[in-house]
Structures are given as structure tokens and as C-alpha cells.
């Protein structure tokens, strides 16, 4: 399941035939399109097909059409955020060589959230791009901090130490976020959206602000794909193969921090997407990061869109934030990964 497993049929798992990967690529793309369509068609309000088509054409004559017009940016945001988180998780698992790495589990999304919340409450942060910058800075600080704490002591950053440091940091930051937001009635309206992520508040302008950041993060992550393949062999071997290990780590980490920081600045902290998606994708396309990274983006988009649609169906006429559903789906998965690990690795 993980790249570190030594399996009798490791070769067969690692290098999938190209045709099979292409098949999966088509399947995932079809699923994504279907989910996006469902996300536009399904919601807390039933809208007739004719109205949906009319709304997509740009008319907002009745309530149904207006609802659909709001669902379109929401769907786009879910796809973008899911893709960003899925890929960020894959890159983090590659950089730390840790099957438990995830922007949520490691507390990085919470770092981004805290930075945004502090900016809003104390420094009068108002412009959308400043929010994104604050989130990215918070994510970067949290990432460095968790990695530093997790790699203290003997054995460096073992999966267990890193996961514990991340979980502790995440819990700590959650408390701080609540303490910062609660006294401020003017921003307390959003308290839950900073503690539990969701894509309900999507707007075109918000999406426009984060897209450049996401694009840069995406490019940096994809550029480091080949380097991550070498890193999987271990630092010594990677260096021996001529890889500049520190450089690869730096670029990949920057890419993943940009991705999850920007995603958190628009959607709040959403955990476990980055954990689940890479593990699933490795089963489908193997461990080659050049294939894995684009796949995790697509699958992440599928997962988040599906969770968002589900959240709108489950508690009609109300809505369930997507962050709640991803935790409900993702936490059992986390437990399964913990259980699969060999004793020595944990």
C-alpha cells in the first residue's frame, strides 16, 4: 500500500503498464465530470432540468435558476480545493517519506487558519490576496515547526513522532483559533468556517484570487515529481544518483505549502483529503510521482466534490460542511493506515 512496503510483488505494483494507467485516467476524469454535474444539479433545493440548463445559459429569472448560479462557483471551488489538498498530501508524504503525512493531520491547515483569523481579528486584514498571503505564511510556519518538533531526538522524523507532533500542534492551534475568534462578535459569525472547512461560501472573486497561488504550487509540485521518486530510495541513494536532495525537498515543500495554504484561505481547514487520496492513487497507478501527482489532484477533486454533494443531500434542507464529512470518512482511513504499519516503523 505504501511505497516503503517491501512486497513480494513490489515490481508489479510499482510499475503499472501504461495502458492501465490511461484507463484509470479516463475513469477518474469521467467520474469527476459526473460529480461536477451532480454538484450543479443536486442541492438542498430541487431544481427542474430546464431551469438548470437555463441557469447555465446565464438567466436567473426564478429562485431555482438563482440557486444553480450559486452552485457553479461552489463546484469549481470544491474541485480546486480537493485537487490542491490531494496533491499537497501526496507531495508531503513523498517529502517526509511518511504514510501518515497530510496537511490536516500535520496541523498545517490549522496554521493557515490561525494566521487568517489573527489577521482578521487583530490586524484588520481585509483584501482577499492579503488573506491568501497570511494563510500561506501560517502554513509555512506550521510546517517548519511541526517538522522541527517531529525530528527532534533519536531516529529523526519517524512517522509516529511527526504524526504526534502534528496532531498536538493541530489541537493547540484549534484552541488558539477559538480563543482569538470568540471575543470578536463581528467575526464570530465565521467561527465554524475557520474551525471546520467548507466550500459553501464560494464566490468567483475569491476563486480568482487563489487560482494564481494554486497554479504556482501545482507547477512547483509537478516539477519536483522526478526528484520525489529519487527521494523514495532514501537520501543517500538519491544523492548518489545525482539528485540535489535539499533542493528537491525545498521546492516540493514550498509547492505543497502553497497548495494547502491557498486552499485553506478560501475553504477553511479540511483534513484527511491529503491522507486518503494518495494512498488510493498508489493502488491505482503505482508509486511513480510523475503519474501519482496529477492523479491525486484529480482524485482529490472527486473526493471533495462528492463529499460536498453528500453534505447537501444528507441533512436537507440544511447543509453539512465538507470538512465534517471528510473527517468522518478520513479518520477511519487514518486508523487503518496506523494499524497496517509495522511496529518498528511506528
Amino acid at each position, binding site marked *: 500500500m505504501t511505497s516503503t512496503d517491501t512486497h513480494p510483488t513490489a515490481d508489479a505494483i510499482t510499475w503499472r503498464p501504461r495502458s492501465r494507467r490511461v484507463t484509470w485516467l479516463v475513469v477518474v476524469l469521467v467520474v469527476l465530470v459526473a460529480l461536477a454535474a451532480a454538484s450543479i444539479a443536486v442541492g438542498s433545493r430541487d431544481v427542474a432540468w430546464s431551469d438548470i440548463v437555463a441557469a447555465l445559459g446565464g438567466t436567473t429569472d426564478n429562485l431555482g435558476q438563482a440557486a444553480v448560479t450559486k452552485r457553479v462557483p461552489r463546484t469549481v471551488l470544491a474541485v480546486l480545493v480537493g485537487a490542491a489538498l490531494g496533491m499537497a498530501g501526496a507531495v508531503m508524504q513523498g517529502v517526509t517519506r511518511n504514510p501518515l503525512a497530510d496537511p490536516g493531520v500535520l496541523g498545517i491547515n490549522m496554521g493557515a487558519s490561525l494566521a487568517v483569523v489573527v489577521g482578521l481579528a487583530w490586524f484588520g486584514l481585509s483584501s482577499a490576496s492579503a488573506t491568501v498571503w497570511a494563510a500561506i505564511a501560517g502554513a509555512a510556519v506550521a510546517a517548519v515547526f511541526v517538522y522541527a518538533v517531529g525530528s527532534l*531526538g533519536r531516529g529523526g522524523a519517524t512517522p509516529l513522532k511527526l504524526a504526534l507532533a502534528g496532531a498536538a500542534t493541530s489541537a493547540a492551534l484549534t484552541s488558539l483559533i477559538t480563543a482569538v475568534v470568540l471575543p470578536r462578535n463581528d467575526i464570530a459569525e465565521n467561527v465554524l468556517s475557520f474551525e471546520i472547512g467548507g466550500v459553501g461560501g464560494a464566490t468567483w472573486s475569491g476563486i480568482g484570487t487563489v487560482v494564481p497561488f494554486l497554479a504556482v504550487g501545482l507547477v512547483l509540485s509537478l516539477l519536483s515529481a522526478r526528484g520525489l521518486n529519487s527521494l523514495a530510495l532514501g537520501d543517500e541513494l538519491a544523492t548518489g544518483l545525482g539528485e540535489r536532495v535539499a533542493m528537491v525537498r525545498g521546492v516540493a515543500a514550498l509547492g505543497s505549502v502553497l497548495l494547502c495554504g491557498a486552499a485553506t484561505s478560501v475553504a477553511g481547514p479540511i483534513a484527511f483529503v491529503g491522507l486518503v487520496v494518495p494512498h488510493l492513487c498508489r493502488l491505482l497507478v503505482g508509486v511513480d510521482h510523475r503519474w501519482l501527482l496529477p492523479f491525486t489532484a484529480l482524485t482529490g477533486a472527486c473526493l471533495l466534490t462528492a463529499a460536498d454533494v453528500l453534505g447537501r443531500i444528507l441533512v436537507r434542507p440544511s447543509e453539512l460542511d465538507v470538512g465534517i464529512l471528510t473527517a468522518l470518512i478520513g479518520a477511519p482511513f487514518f486508523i487503518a493506515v*496506523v494499524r497496517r504499519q509495522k511496529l518498528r516503523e511506528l
Partner: protein
Amino acid sequence: MSADLERPRLVEVPAAAVTQVTRDRKRRAVRRRVVIAVLSVLVLAMIAVSLMVGQTFYPPGDVLRVLLGQDVPGAAFTVGRLRIPRTVLAVVVGLSFGLAGVTFQTMLRNPLASPDVIGISSGAGAAAAFAIVVVGWSGTRVSAFAIVVCLAVALAIYLLAFKGGVLGTRLILIGIGVEAMLRSATAYVLSVAADWDLQEAMRWLTGSLNGASWTATLPALVALVVLAPILLGQTRNLSTLQLGDDTAAALGVRLERTRLIAILAAVGLIAFATSGAGPIAFVAFLAGPIAARLVGPNGSLLVPAALVGALLVLVGDFCGQYAFGNRMPVGVVTGVLGAPSLIYLIIRTNRAGGSL
């Protein structure tokens, strides 16, 4: 100890060394007693402060007369109806969380294995939120339901962590996963409920004493009175368990029986306290390590940790009400206190190069 006398002496121990050991033991026993006494005085002082001080100050005389059941204009309502239930709930909940937390930490030999880190408190929180907010139950039915769910969660964590023996670290990681799930389950329950407000959400997510009443306090109080003596009866067995299962068994501890009693009592305390005030963040986690620092390496931590827990909740609630411009739920205050301690604990363990 008497065990020493029964064993045949193979090596002659110098008399000076024996007196040195005896003196050290005595000194540590004195320190333990002093710490417990000081903590008790502090808890009593904090109770007095919480009863007297508030938006309006009532002198000790007024408070005493209200306590004796006399009708004092103004104070009868403010102190009798608002402050007394709140203070009693704070003390009961603090004692319960401290006691249950240190029981888990002692039994699993790891400070991170406290019920609020591994999801047992959030299990009770989710259950209580569901029972109260969605089903509309109240009183003992809520607590009973919370206990059942709590036990189920504890059992589930134990079984999930069991794989040819339970490894403490794996149990903690799995507990963290369970905690994340139950927290979002609580959020789910709250959002399904028709009319829930931020106040209610804060209570079930971080713990709060706002809206404390006798109906919420009494079940927790009864549970404490019944369960605390049972747990304290296991003091010696729990301390011996810390030496490791094999050693404890060799020293005559009935492992399974001790564990079962301790888990049932601790889970009961957590469930009743949580259905009264919500899972107050990090009190169960903090009480044990603080008590250990104060008492030093001797004797059981159960009583000091319970007192520290009560003190934390009392001080946290008082600060939350009056120290900041805005009324903060106690869970937010203890959360901010507990968060850095959690990180500090992990840094220290990692530095020491422990097996963690």
C-alpha cells in the same frame, strides 16, 4: 516496606544507607502531604472567590447566610441560583476529569494517553450532544447514554490498537484518529439539530459551565461520590501497574480485574462530567503531569491530580468570565493553557529520545 523484611538478606546493607533511604522516603512523604494540603487550601479559596466575586461583590457573611438557606435580598438569587451550582459543577467536573485523566495516564504509562487526547471525552461529548440536542433527553438518561457510548469508544480504541498486544503509541495514534472522527460527529449532530447556537456548540466542542444548573450538576456529583472511592481503592494496584504488567503480576496485582475496575470507574467519571459541562479541553490531560511535577516521584497521583483538575476548572472558569472583556467558556481558557503544554510534552519526550 514489609516486603523487604520477609526477603532473606543476601548482601549486608550498611546501616548508614538504610537510614538515608528512610530519611528520603520520609521527606518525600512529607512533601506529598504538604502539596495535597496546599492544593486543598487553594481549591477552597477559589471556591470562596467564585462565590463572592462577580459582577457584584457579596461579603463572606452574605454568602454564608445564603449557604445556610437564609433569604438575603439579591444574593439569594445571584449566589444561590447562579454561583453555587456553577461552582459546585466546576469542582465536581474538575475532580472527575483530573481523577479519570490520571487513571488513564497511569494505566497506559503515557501522559498522552489521557481521555481527551484519545477521544474518550469527545465520545461522551458527541453522545451527550446527540441525546440532549437531537433527542431532547435530559438528566440521568443522557449520562447513561454517554457512559454506554464512552465504553464502546474505549473498547473500540483498545480493539483497534490490539494487534498481538497493545502498543501504547499505536493506541494513542488510533485514539487521535477516533478523536477527530467524534469531534466531527459532534459538529454533524449540532448541524442536524434544528436550532443550535454558538453557545451550545461551544459547550459540546470545548466545554463550558455557562448555563450550569442543579439538574446538570447532581448526576455528576452523585457519580463522583460513588466512583471516586472505588478508584481510590485501587491506588496501590495502579501504582504497581506502572512498573510494567509482568512485574505488577509478580507483585500480586490482579491485572485484568484492576484494569477493568479502573477503566469502568474512569469512564463513568468522564461520561457524567461531560454530560454536565461538555468535554472541557485538556483538563484531564493537564492535571496528571502538573500533579507529578508538584509531588515528585513518589506515591500515587490520584488525589493531587484530582485537586489540580478542580483548581484548573475553577481558575479557568473565573478567568473566562471576568479576566477578558468578553465571557469565554472555560474550555477555551483551559484549551489555550493546555495547547502549549501538549507541545512542550512532545518536545521533551522527543529530546529525551524516548521510544515515542
